[in-house]
């Protein structure tokens, strides 16, 4: 039996012909969808292209730094750039994102310095950005628990009484296909649904939960699960930045208007390993990766720009050069990240001074001071 003949019957969870919202084909042709009109200026498209290239380059640099022993681990977003940039650029200043540990592209859109992400995986900070400032929560390592945080945050927005006003924001929860099997995620669906909370559940279905294929998570296409919980679900081409932008915009707009939660399944593929400690050649076929390579999220935007005469070689070269410069700067900044002071761990345990913490901090400081200074 060959790979092709195995593919003849669709896997459970995978429609034979996935019906999804697509506005830009893998060949870079613009197509229309009746429910999701999208008007982008040439500048908008060029900006999206730049975003995609930048986050891929930043991601590659982080992978390399991990391979060089400078980061402990890294979860690459390779292949998922469009899902992240499209949804990330759909947010407004009032929205709040609840990421996993792979949302480097969304973090980029929310103005979080990538150096903070690297610091987290270098073990010198715990993220280090202020979620309220960026509308981007700290990375969540536990699978799926951020969906509950998002649902709770969304219920808080309801209680602020701002829904339907121009200042309204919504919550958006990021998670993967594997997380849909988590109890937390299903609980979040229930809460969001019955309270009609303003939250978008944005699932990047990258086909793999580490080494477990999608067929081990679901017997129906994931977006159809939403129906059972009582809110709409839609599948979008996760490698199409236009479609991800349009669909997420619509979903967030509905949430901000008080129309309740929705589920977006961005159908994509994790082109790299789960994390740098994983080896996907142990459980999947190269042919699958090759097939998805043809659907690359960046190439199709590039084709679109070229096809429509919206960018020339000079533009692409300058974007590449900028990405390279940014990566170099990121590398240097990462290598000179200071280790935190040993006592810093006590500082953020409680928001306010706490007698036990103070006592422990003092005892620890005294312990540290008990060592003789060593002259180099």
């Amino acid at each position, binding site marked *: 039996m060959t790979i092709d003949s195995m593919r003849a019957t669709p896997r459970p969870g995978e429609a034979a012909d996935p019906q999804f919202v697509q506005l830009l084909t893998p060949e870079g042709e613009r197509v229309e969808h009746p429910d999701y009109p999208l008007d982008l200026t040439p500048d908008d498209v060029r900006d999206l292209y730049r975003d995609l290239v930048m986050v891929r380059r930043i991601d590659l640099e982080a992978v390399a730094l991990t391979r060089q022993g*400078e980061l402990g681990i890294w979860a690459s977003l390779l292949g998922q750039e469009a899902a992240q940039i499209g949804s990330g650029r759909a947010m407004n200043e009032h929205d709040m994102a609840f990421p996993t540990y792979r949302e480097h592209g969304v973090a980029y859109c929310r103005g979080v310095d990538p150096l903070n992400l690297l610091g987290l995986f*270098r073990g010198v900070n715990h993220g280090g950005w202020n979620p309220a400032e960026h509308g981007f929560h700290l990375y969540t390592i536990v699978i799926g628990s951020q969906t509950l945080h998002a649902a709770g945050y969304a219920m808080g927005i309801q209680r602020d009484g701002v829904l339907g006003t121009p200042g309204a924001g919504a919550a958006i929860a990021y998670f993967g296909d594997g997380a849909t099997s988590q109890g937390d995620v299903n609980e979040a669906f229930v809460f969001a649904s019955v309270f009609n909370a303003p939250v978008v559940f944005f699932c990047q279905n990258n086909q793999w939960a580490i080494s477990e294929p999608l067929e081990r998570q679901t017997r129906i296409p994931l977006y159809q699960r939403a129906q059972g919980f009582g809110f709409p679900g839609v599948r979008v081409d996760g490698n199409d930045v236009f479609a991800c932008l349009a669909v997420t915009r619509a979903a967030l707009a509905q949430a901000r208007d008080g129309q309740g939660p929705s589920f977006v399944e961005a159908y994509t593929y994790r082109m790299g390993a789960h994390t740098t400690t994983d080896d996907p050649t142990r459980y999947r076929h190269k042919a699958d990766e090759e097939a998805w390579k043809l659907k690359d999220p960046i190439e199709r935007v590039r084709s679109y720009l070229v096809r429509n005469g919206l960018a020339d070689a000079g533009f692409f070269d300058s974007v590449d050069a900028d990405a390279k410069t940014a990566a170099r700067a990121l590398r240097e900044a990462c290598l000179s990240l200071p280790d935190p002071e040993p006592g810093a761990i006590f500082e953020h345990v409680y928001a306010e001074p706490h007698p036990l913490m103070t006592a422990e901090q003092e005892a620890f400081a005294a312990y540290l001071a008990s060592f003789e200074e060593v002259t180099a």
Partner: protein
Amino acid sequence: MVSGMATKQFKLPDVGEGLTEAEIVKWHVAVGDTVEINQTIVEIETAKAIVELPCPFEGVVSELLADEGVTVDVGVPIISVDVGGDSSGAEAVPREEVLKEDLVPDAAEEAAADAEPEQAKRQPVLVGYGVKPGATKRRQRKGGSVPGSGAGAEAGAGLAGAAHAAGEAHTGGATHATGAAHATGATGAGHPPPAQGGDPTLSVQCDTPPPSPTTEPVDNFSPLAKPPVRKMAKDLGVDLRTLRGTGPNGSITRDDVQAATGNGTTAPTPPAQTGPPVTAPSTEPAPHTPPVGDRVPLKGVRKAMAAAMAQSAFTAPHVTMFHQVDVTETMATARRLRELPDFADVKVSPLLLVAKALLVAVRRHPIANARFDGDAVVMNPSVNLGIAAATDRGLIVPNIKDAQSKTLPELATALKELTETARAGRTTPAAMSGGTITITNIGVFGIDTGTPILTPGESAILAFGQIRDLPWVHEGELAIRKISALALSFDHRVLDGAEGSAVLHDIATMLENPLQALAWT
């Protein structure tokens, strides 16, 4: 190359959360090559994956410090790159300047501190958990809670204990005779990289196991004690390894530590309680210590084999059946097949016909190709025929996918490819996964038969012994015939004795009379 060019060394990083070593699989660069940042320089294999390492520097490769095929500890330099510019300060990697002292107490560090008291600067610790002992160094405490000579004595005592445990005399921490890697780790603490990298083979070719990152560096022995007890022992200058624990599971208690200080010595004679002998006295070798021998660390394929075989042997109840078989006709058939144009490019070995016979038997008894899955037996839809292959690196079992659908020439081709790939060391993890049944051709070792252990997840394995000319009763008379022996081990949760016997009997019948295979296909 300009003289005075600065050289930087790239130390093997922990690329997989807590790995301690990796094998150099393939260098992608050679001495004299120009390299860029993030250019792939080497492929390494860890316990988790084969990964390509990108170069952290740009410059010209001046030295490869580890050969292909060698297993290197995390933290050992593997390549030197001339990065140009002034050599002064080239080693002043920003990492080193900002790193703080590690606070984890460690006897090796103390040994290092003793040996190299002037060395204060710490090596850059590679991120991840695979921190090499000796890469950190403990500072002296103020106020003499550890006397000036105490650190040395403590470390010396610790090393002595370890050396005796290994049944070997020694005179000092830094000269610990068998532990080349350890000595490197100990004396290398605080050295600038060139000093440690001067003879990288010293550590990478060492036969002793790499130091575990969380235990004592001189051996694998770490006394059981709760953290507060450890702290107390440390504060009192008591080496836990010299104590015999009286707590649960032989753990060392506060009282044990206090008793030790009461004796007025940092290396007291163990109390007379019965209990697990956690250490030997520091002055005389323990009489029951086994003789020392080279420890060959289990690595890569051999490590995987050990784990797989133990898992299989202790989870699947094996039954092995034997059958002697007259393969004279099989040999004759093989000869005749070789003359067919269909087999012009491939080898027609007895193994090929054994494989075919097994496939036919499986077709008649699909249960032999099933697998046990908790509360059910899962019938595998296709036969992925594993062939146990002895390679330079150890036993591997790549399999031929969908073997049941292959014609005999196709099967021969697949067998040829499989063995050639295995011999070349290029077998992929994918080729080794998904097997459903296995043949092990122990005949190539000149062996008659044995009791093979199932490949984990499979239900049957056939051992094919050597073929010998033996006296045999053939058609009522003694004759010299080609005789071999078959052994079939099977998972008795999946197959019962009757089914196992039928499979083995069918195979034997087809090898005695290859025409029978025609009747059954």
